[in-house]
């Protein structure tokens, strides 16, 4: 059988729609048609099936169960248009094999289903009751070898025509399906996305030294049908702008590729190179001129003057201005143990929110503030911390590289969490407009990977106190910020959540220490030491944890049994060792110390009856068990850990 071509001709599709269609054609429709290739570009979505089967696959139509043959077979056979003798039996059911239609009969329906079945995240209509698509569909071309397949979809009749490059290609005939690629190439279109990517990369490599920090290449592949890689220049005076401003001006809107010096590369879809380069140079210079103008105005103000404007900029309604926020950050960095550089950075961290340039380049907040701090001659440690305050900005993005940066970044996240929770704006389900999950993950990583001591609970309390002093409209107690943050540790550590829950109840409160304890518990969970420590915790907790009437303090003189005396003395030895090891974050050492209580606890349970008649003895024994539980409990609530 010959090959099959279906081309859906569109007005210019967004790159994201191209990728959506590509995935659906490849994963859903191609297998159904028998395999082949998908070609996707801004003006066309196409599938080319190298060899299409002559018939559709046969279809099994299941009828009544075999034991009802007497009563039901005849009716079923008649309905299927076959004789009773032709019925077959499969898995206890009667049925009939319906041979697949000839492919030429089946295709019109199948192709229409493809056109009408593609779905897009964002779609539109252009005719009443018409097709829903990413952008209007303007033609359909369908060929089976030399034959044109006649079908209708979305109000369009399929034909044998396609269209080349929008301005140079015009209408062209696809004589037979196999000619598709050559026909389009002759009409100025490269239909194959991978080939366009190759051509673009090759063109960029030929120029050399290109960068693509924002990753626009993946998009550009779907923005052109006839890629031409060109190189432009801009006035060197713009190199005095912060380099990332220049880079963002190139990439974010224009999708240019920065080169060394005052140069850039870009991908055109046609035109005369000289003319197109001159035009693009003028556009970029316009954008840079605009940025330069804004930058100069900001710089003339200076970062201190910008910081003074923060009082008139609302941070979040109900939580005061950005000046209020800066005041809180300064207190929080002190609480986090930050030094002079952190405090200075916290004071200036939000100053760039008053800068015009940040309004133009919102993604460069922090960076622009840092640049303005550099211009004002602040020490590099301060500038770096301003720059790094929003890091990490994704779940696996880089952490702040400097200590002051980590301190300011942690304070920034604590404050965002506290404010949102205090205003009653907790994230729910998929709604997390303030990016609080990301902030919580960031905090965890700054503690775990960055080694900064972060006591979430006490920082949140401090921040809440500041908010109240500032007369913020506090609606809720934000104490559950700590729970919210600790829940995020699970993903950060790759440790089952039970160990994190267990560790949180232990003798450490600082985020990094809890994380380390959870990791140690998880790593030791199958060791003998852990097993013994667990037994000590679990047996004493099970009996004494729920019982009433434990004594307020242990009285060793009430101990009568040998096993009881032995446990008291083991506890006396182990308890300070556990405590000291936990304080030094030597959690494996603490487990080893706690393990020494395992055997005495077992012996105690074997030999001693706790619930005796004598109330004082009973109360004292319950107290002993609670003391054992609490000593081992410096390692956390081990009952959370599944055994």
């Amino acid at each position: 059988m010959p090959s099959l071509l279906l081309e859906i001709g569109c007005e210019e599709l967004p790159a994201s729609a191209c990728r959506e269609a590509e995935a659906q054609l490849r994963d859903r429709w191609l297998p159904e048609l028998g395999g082949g290739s998908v070609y996707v570009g801004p003006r066309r979505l196409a599938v080319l099936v190298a060899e299409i089967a002559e018939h559709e696959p046969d279809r099994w139509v299941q009828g009544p169960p075999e034991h009802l043959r007497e009563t039901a077979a005849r009716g079923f056979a008649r309905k299927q248009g076959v004789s009773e003798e032709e019925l077959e039996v499969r898995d206890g059911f009667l049925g009939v094999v319906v041979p697949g239609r000839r492919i030429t009969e089946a295709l019109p329906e199948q192709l229409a289903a493809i056109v009408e079945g593609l779905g897009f995240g964002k779609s539109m209509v252009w005719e009443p009751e018409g097709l829903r698509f990413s952008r209007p569909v303007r033609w359909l071309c369908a060929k089976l070898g030399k034959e044109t397949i006649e079908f209708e979809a979305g109000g369009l009749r399929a034909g044998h025509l396609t269209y080349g490059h929008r301005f140079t290609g015009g209408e062209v005939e696809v004589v037979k399906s196999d000619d598709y690629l050559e026909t389009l190439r002759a009409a100025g279109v490269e239909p194959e996305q991978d080939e366009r990517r190759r051509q673009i990369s090759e063109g960029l490599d030929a120029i050399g030294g290109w960068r693509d920090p924002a990753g626009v290449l993946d998009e550009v592949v779907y923005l052109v049908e006839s890629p031409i890689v060109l190189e432009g220049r801009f006035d060197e005076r713009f190199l005095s702008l912060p380099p990332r401003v220049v880079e963002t001006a190139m990439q974010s809107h224009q999708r240019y590729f920065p080169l060394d010096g005052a140069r850039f590369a870009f991908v055109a879809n046609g035109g005369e190179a000289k003319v197109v380069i001159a035009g693009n140079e003028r556009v970029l210079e316009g954008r840079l001129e605009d940025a330069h103008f804004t930058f100069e105005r900001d710089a003339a103000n200076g970062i201190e003057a910008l910081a003074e404007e923060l009082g008139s900029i609302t941070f979040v309604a109900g939580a005061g201005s950005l000046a209020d926020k800066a005041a809180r950050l300064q207190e929080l960095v002190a609480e986090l143990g930050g030094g002079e550089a952190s405090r200075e950075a916290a004071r200036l961290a939000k100053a760039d929110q008053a800068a015009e340039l940040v309004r133009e380049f919102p993604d460069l907040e922090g960076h622009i503030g840092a640049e303005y701090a550099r211009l004002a001659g602040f020490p590099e440690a301060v500038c770096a911390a301003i720059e790094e305050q929003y890091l990490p900005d994704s779940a696996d993005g880089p952490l702040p590289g400097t200590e002051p940066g980590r301190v300011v970044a942690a304070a920034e996240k604590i404050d965002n969490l506290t404010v949102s929770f205090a205003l009653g704006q907790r994230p729910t389900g998929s709604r997390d407009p303030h990016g609080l999950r990301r902030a919580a993950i960031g905090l965890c990583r700054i503690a775990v990977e960055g080694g900064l001591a972060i006591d979430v609970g006490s920082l949140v309390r401090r921040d809440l106190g500041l908010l109240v002093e500032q007369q913020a409209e506090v609606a809720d107690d934000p104490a559950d910020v700590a729970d919210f943050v600790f829940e995020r540790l699970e993903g950060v550590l790759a440790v089952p959540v039970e160990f994190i829950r267990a560790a949180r109840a232990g003798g450490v409160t600082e985020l990094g220490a809890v994380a380390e304890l959870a990791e140690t518990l998880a790593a030791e969970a199958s060791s003998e030491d852990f097993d013994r420590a667990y037994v000590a915790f679990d047996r004493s907790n099970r009996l004494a944890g729920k019982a009433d009437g434990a004594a307020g303090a242990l009285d060793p003189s009430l101990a009568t049994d040998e096993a009881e005396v032995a446990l008291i003395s083991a506890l006396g030895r182990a308890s300070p060792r556990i405590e000291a090891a936990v304080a030094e974050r030597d959690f494996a050492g603490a487990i080893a110390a706690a393990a020494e209580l395992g055997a005495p606890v077992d012996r105690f349970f074997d030999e001693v009856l706790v619930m005796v008649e004598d109330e004082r003895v009973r109360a004292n024994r319950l107290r002993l068990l609670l003391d054992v539980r609490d000593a081992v409990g410096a390692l956390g609530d081990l009952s959370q850990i599944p055994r």
Partner: protein
Amino acid sequence: MSALNFQEMIARLEDYWADDGCVLMQPYHTEVGAGTFNPATFLRCLGPEPWKAAYVEPSIRPTDGRYGENPFRFQHYYQYQVILKPAPEDVLDRYFRSLEAVGIDLEKHDVRLVEDDWEGPTLGAWGLGWEVWVDGMEVTQFTYFQQLGGLELDIVPAEITYGLERLAMFLQDKRTAFDLEWAPGVTWGDVYRENERQWSTYNFEAAPVDVLARRFGEHEAECRDLIALGLALPAYDQVLKCSHAFNLLDARGAISVTERASYIGRVRKLARVVAELYVESVAQPAA
């Protein structure tokens, strides 16, 4: 062919779209942020009646002013607005031919349609389309409206909005709008620089905040009264006046982030009710 000056370029567009069958309208008499707000677009695009119109619209955007000091930012500039309802199948070709009409050789330049989804929150409106680039310069926004005033559109119109200064800068090879030749011997700057300076001062410094806030409320109330009287067209003017008062308050920095959403919501609500009234009372299919 030497480049067209500003007024010649406008005349060329007028001729082109008149030939295409458009009603040539004139700018609206109330401040609007974009040609979309002109009732010749917003109201006429509602309902089942076909409509083709083209007009110049001054775009008044108080926050964009820079006292005439920045060569790229203005609080007052011009759009050329074309509405084709319903959007003809060859609407893009018609648009591209209009570029040729003002002197752009489509084979010599890199003309591209780049995804741009439009949303007008105060009008409860959205559509999908593109910004049109010529050699990287955005000269037009092209939108297939899907919703206006919160109403799904039965007939999908195409809106073509040329940024006249940008288009002219491209044609005349000028780096700033101030240097554009408006008419022989007269530049855009001659005509508008002082305008930018004074209006920027007004927008950012002098516009009376309490008066504007009060007026917003008055226009809103009047809009409701007019709706009750079934007067969709005058009611719509009050929506525009609310919108402009909001824009000025915004430029004066008198609106916090939360208030902002609430102001926008109030305008949108009015726009929706006016749109519904207009559809019920005016935009009926011809008998």
